[in-house]
């Protein structure tokens, strides 16, 4: 058994939907042991309702769905989600039993990311989930870039200069001195820039300017 890299995923969230409390708890423990935080849901309907009303923060996420649940099966939940418009950066991984593999294959054809077979739950499972989360993040980032690209062409030359300097970690005062403008002007440009890119902090600016 090799040491696993610290796999704290930065953006993607992990949601676990399973009616069995101990499954939720044990899988939660397993993910935690690999520094992956997860959020558990016992009721698929509740999860669906929450997702639908926007109670969940939009962003890259992996939904780990149990297939056999009372009231609504994991497949049904997946269908509902697809019908309501599941974004590409929300991936679905099924937890299946052996008898349901053929159905799980069908589900993958229908757009699910992967499936994991019970009861063989170990680090391979975590690896798959982490891979899924990475994938989700990548998808999300590329989506963001596309969005920024669309918005970025609207930035002025001055704003672009200021943005580059923000990413470089320079303070407003240094930027003002370098560009021979007042600190106040830099602040105005910065606010305009953040507004245009729909971001709130300088950190968010970094991936946008990477291209």
């Amino acid at each position: 058994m090799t040491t696993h890299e610290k796999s704290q995923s930065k953006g993607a969230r992990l949601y676990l939907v399973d009616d069995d409390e101990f499954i939720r708890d044990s899988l939660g423990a397993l993910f935690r042991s690999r520094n992956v935080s997860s959020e558990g849901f016992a009721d698929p309907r509740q999860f669906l309702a929450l997702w639908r009303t926007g109670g969940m923060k939009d962003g890259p996420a992996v939904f780990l769905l149990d297939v056999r649940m009372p009231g609504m099966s994991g497949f049904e939940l997946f269908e509902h989600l697809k019908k309501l418009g599941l974004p590409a950066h929300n991936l679905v991984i099924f937890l299946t039993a052996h008898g349901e593999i053929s159905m799980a294959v069908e589900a993958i054809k229908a757009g699910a990311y992967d499936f994991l077979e019970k009861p063989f739950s170990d680090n391979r499972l975590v690896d798959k989930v982490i891979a899924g989360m990475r994938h989700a993040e990548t998808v999300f980032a590329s989506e963001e870039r596309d969005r920024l690209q669309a918005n970025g062409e609207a930035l002025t030359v001055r704003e672009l200069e200021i943005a580059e300097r923000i990413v470089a970690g320079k303070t407003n005062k240094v930027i003002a001195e370098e560009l021979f403008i007042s600190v106040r002007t830099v602040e105005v440009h910065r606010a305009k820039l953040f507004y245009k890119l729909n971001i709130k902090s300088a950190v968010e600016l970094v991936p946008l300017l990477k291209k």
Partner: protein
Amino acid sequence: MARIAGKKNRPTGRCQRERWHRLLFGVNEGQCISEILAKSECFLRLRSFTSGPLRLVIPLGVICFIVAVTGALLLVSQNLEHARQERQLVSDTLWAEQAVIFELQRVVEALQSLERDYALSSQSEKYFHVRAAAIMQRSPEIGRILLWQDHGDNDKPYVMMSEGGGGAGDVHATNDNEMRTAARKAETLRGLGVSVFQDANHGAYMLLAVTTFADSTRQVVVASVSLDKLLASTIPWWFAHQTQLTLEDFEGNVLATRDPHVFGKSVYTHRLAAPFADQTLYLDANSTLGPPSLIPNVLTLAVVGMSILLAWTVYALWRDLAWRTMAEKRLRSQQAFREAMEASTITGMRATDTAGVITYVNQAYCSMLGRSPDELIGTRIEGSRGELTGCDAKAEAGAVQKALEIRLTRSDGAPIDVAIFEAPMRDVTGAISGYMASVLDVTEQKRNASLLSAQNERVNRLSRLITMGEMTSALAHEMNQPLTAINSYLSAGKNLLEATGHDAEHSEAYQMLEKARYQAERAGLVIRRIRQFVHKSGPVPGPVDMTQLITELLPLVRLQAPRPDSDIVLDLDAACPSVIGDRVLLEQVLLNLTRNAFEAMATWPSADQRVIIAMRSPEDDQQSVVIEVQDSGPGLGEEANTILSSSFTSTKADGMGLGLSVCRTALELLDSRLVYAKSPAGGASFQFRLRSTSVQ
């Protein structure tokens, strides 16, 4: 019918003799009747001309003829007798009249002679007396004779009285006037003068006056003749005895009667005029004989009696014949009825004698064995020994024996299973003369039973499999959950140990966690292997022709129906392709669904009970086939869909019975799903979809 039909190709010789032997010694009653009827055909043909309207007319005609002849005979003889009597009376009366007239003429002659002789005898008074007395003696009807002499002025008659007629003489003596009148009449007529007088006391009398004019002295001899006595002396007793004879004048007044105690019956009467001198008397005869009786004597009576007897005999004969004809007709119709019944019944009938030799078989028995009656009659029955001893023991108690199932062999060698009920036949003395057996062909029934049991066996095996599959599935699910949790916890534990850093993998705790995880994984593998095993022995899907399957299944479906005439409709689209499935599983699904349908309609009136099995390809997907089972029952509520879509399997019998659960699992094994809907008629409709073989 079988007997008579068999008669046509009846072999002669020994067989024939045996038949007669059996007929004569009466082996069995039914056979005897048919034999007798068959043999009486010849007689019937001879007699057939008497049938029809003639049969009624001939005896009636004979009877009428006898009656008419006898009646005519009697009438003719009566008429003859009547005429004879009448002729007799007429001749007798004529004779009597002759006698009366003759007597009167004799008296007149005697008187003339007296008168003449008296004149010749010089009117001797004594001579007159002597002669008058002689006349009176000879003719008692003369009451008085007197000589009338006319002396001119003095009308003094000379009167002489006769002896012996004292009473009469007294009477007539007072009637001198009448005498004178009679004498004057004779004088006027110059010969004979006759007068008739009525006397209230003594009856009528006749005065005969005779004169000759012998000389100048006019003398007249007058005699008074009593008419009663005249009749009495002239008419003999034998005639008077049977005939009422009276003398009457021309006005019909009775002057004299021969015998006042004899009265005629006015049947035979004759009136004869008796002219005498200037007077005419009428002799009236009225016979005491009545009309001649129709049956005059014993001989006639005997003839009539015999005729009646003859007529009655003819009638009795005719009635007997009619009765016999009717009885025979009834017997024939009954025989025909019996034969038709025997021919129509599917129960084979067979009679054997005590030795086990067949004496009678019906059509059903013959067709059961595929042999003709002649082949069977006279042979010993198969497996007779056990059969007979078994029957004998019970036969004494007089009970119909319990069905005995044996196997017989058809003429083509095929075995047939039959159930035999035997009852003893007894002759008049009560001794057992043979056995009557009704034989039921139960081959089909047995085949059905074995078919059913084979199907049941398959179903049992299948339901065991399904139950095992469901149990395994449930077990796998229930076990997988904790195993997953265990695996996860152990993996998490291992990760945490690793995170502590140095050489954690070689610590004992880590090894233990790893071993525990391995064992948990092994448990999972065991479960997976069990599931695989169950699936491997489960259904083997292959191409199935559903049209053929449903058609062949129909008899079994009918066996489930509460009534054999229940309405089962097949609505099969012949264009549907073959499907992929398991024959036994699909049969069982259909059987369960149809049984549910019949149970749902159990309280329905039988006319409304209908099960429809339909097969078609849906419009949107020609590559699959939909099978539907509909009933006309009350339908199901929403619970049906809940049962069907419930993802948790349970083997417990719920409201719908195990049937639906089995159907659902069986169809899931075939990658299909059972769907419930309300049928257009309001009943339940269960559908499932199968992939056709044309799908790649």
